[in-house]
């Protein structure tokens, strides 16, 4: 009898904790908090349907989005960090952490590269893996980056790098900082060979990554809304002792200030790449050199 008088909620209510829903069915947009149906989210290439935030994707997913199906052939997949400075923090060794990162990311390092095709055109492509130590660059990462550049030189192919991550890896100290010089030295040889390098910067792209190879593309492309810069937002806010506006240091901000050539949505990037590669590879750099020589 008492049941009749029990108060019922007036409206249908969503379950209190979304965490209790079946795993991976719904995903919350990290930027606008919108709840997204994961099947649709995946079909939208992990771009939020409400705020268009381009969520981070794994290196494998990135390759699947960018390259012709089945065209990727990976190089140096087994290369991994040697823990060059024997770093430990609060009792936990970096060597142990590396094992954890490898499991989390299902990759041996924060960067993978190889050859592939974009709308039928051969390229050397390298992609950051965020899930491995936040996509930071250590000595093995730097070695793979340099080898990617060298592979492009050796095969006379254009280079496409998808860059992001937290910058140089603290746990490898000064050795990781020096990877900035190493990657730039390698890129200088690509330049001399007049092979195009297209840099795609994705959220977030910070520190030494931006301050070395990521900014040095012949063409710099940024994904919408990506935080790209030398210092992270937290660091800038500390330096300036004030809150930053939402759009500060984003891809659109960089476009406005002349640091990138275009802000391009994830879905459009492959066709833009294809067009650029076609034009640059059809140009005749040796003729150009000849002209320069005559002028001198």
């Amino acid at each position: 009898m008492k049941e009749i008088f029990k108060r019922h909620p007036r409206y249908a209510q969503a379950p209190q904790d979304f965490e209790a829903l079946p795993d991976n069915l719904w995903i919350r947009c990290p930027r606008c908090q919108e709840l997204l149906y994961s099947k649709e989210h995946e079909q939208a290439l992990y771009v939020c349907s409400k705020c268009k935030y381009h969520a981070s994707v794994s290196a494998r997913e990135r390759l699947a989005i960018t390259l012709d199906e089945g065209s990727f052939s990976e190089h140096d997949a087994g290369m991994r960090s040697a823990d060059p400075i024997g770093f430990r923090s609060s009792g936990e060794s970096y060597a142990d952490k590396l094992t954890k990162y490898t499991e989390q990311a299902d990759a041996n390092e924060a960067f993978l590269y190889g050859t592939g095709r974009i709308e039928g055109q051969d390229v050397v492509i390298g992609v950051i893996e965020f899930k491995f130590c936040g996509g930071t660059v250590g000595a093995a990462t730097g070695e793979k980056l340099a080898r990617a550049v060298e592979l492009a030189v050796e095969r006379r192919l254009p280079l496409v790098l998808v860059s992001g991550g937290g910058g140089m890896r603290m746990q490898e100290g000064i050795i990781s900082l020096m990877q900035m010089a190493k990657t730039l030295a390698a890129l200088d040889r690509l330049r001399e060979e007049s092979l195009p390098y297209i840099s795609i910067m994705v959220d977030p792209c910070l520190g030494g990554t931006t301050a070395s190879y990521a900014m040095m593309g012949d063409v710099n492309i940024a994904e919408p809304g990506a935080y790209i810069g030398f210092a992270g937002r937290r660091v800038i806010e500390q330096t300036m002792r004030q809150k930053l506006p939402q759009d500060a240091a984003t891809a659109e901000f960089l476009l406005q200030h002349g640091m990138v050539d275009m802000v391009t949505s994830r879905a459009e990037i492959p066709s833009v790449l294809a067009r650029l590669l076609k034009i640059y590879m059809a140009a005749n750099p040796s003729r150009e050199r000849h002209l320069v020589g005559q002028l001198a």
Partner: protein
Amino acid sequence: MVSLLDFESAELEAIRKRAHRDGIGGEQLDGALEARLTEIYRNLTPWQKVQVARHRERPYALDYLQWAFSDFVELRGDRRYSDDRAIVGGPATLNGRSVMVIGQQKGRDTRENIQRNFGMAHPEGYRKAERLMRQAERFGMPVITMVDTPGANAGLTDEERGQAEAIASCIATMLSLHVPTVTVVIGEGGSGGALAIAAADRILMLEHSVFTVASPEAAAAILWRDSAKAPEAAENMRITAQDLRSFGLVDEIIPEPEGGAHRDYPAVAKAVGDAANRALDVLLELSVERLLEQRYRKYRDISFFLE
């Protein structure tokens, strides 16, 4: 009179007290203090080295320009936007040779530090450095850089003007110069802001200088979200000149006078000038092709990985 760092004054005060109690003074006390100071400086911990490298009386770039070089003429401005006082540079003479000198410059007092932004350069500082490097190349002048910065400045206006691009471009330019390049780390080498002018044929470090992937404070903030753990970061990150030498990243360690560079400007300046000069003697013998090949290998071969 040199100001003492906390770890020095604690130890020396203890000796003074004991001497006072035992009725010792004069030359005997001075000798004891000096011996203790030498011992302290021989056994500095990494965090203590950071403090010595940041000592407010330590010689800065302009001091070396005064004591080790002659005829220095400062050139200013990046010809793009502004002049950054955190980086100084211009042509000078070293042992009869014309060279281009570029260095990060901290301020001695609050007023000067505001002007020089504590040695933290803006993009225009790196663009000025790049301009001077290109000019040096045109005149066949070797480039000598002096590194002394906590890092590049990290403000929103720096992002607007392309701090990352300025640093990347400065490193790339330095790596491609057709003239010899020598870097001396004279104080603290902090992060990409230091590397921007340190990608040289030869990297020399003063005995008590440090070179870090990020300042200990920044590293602690990144690793543990707590910049107060800077000493722990310093102890764990292998940042001393001796560490870098053991990795083969540094070509030579320049010994400092007893008790640190700040205790004897002329002596440390002579040591720096001599070391830079010796490095140039070797580099100037090389053909441009050999020079560029050696430089490429120096950075390309910084490889530590497992396969």
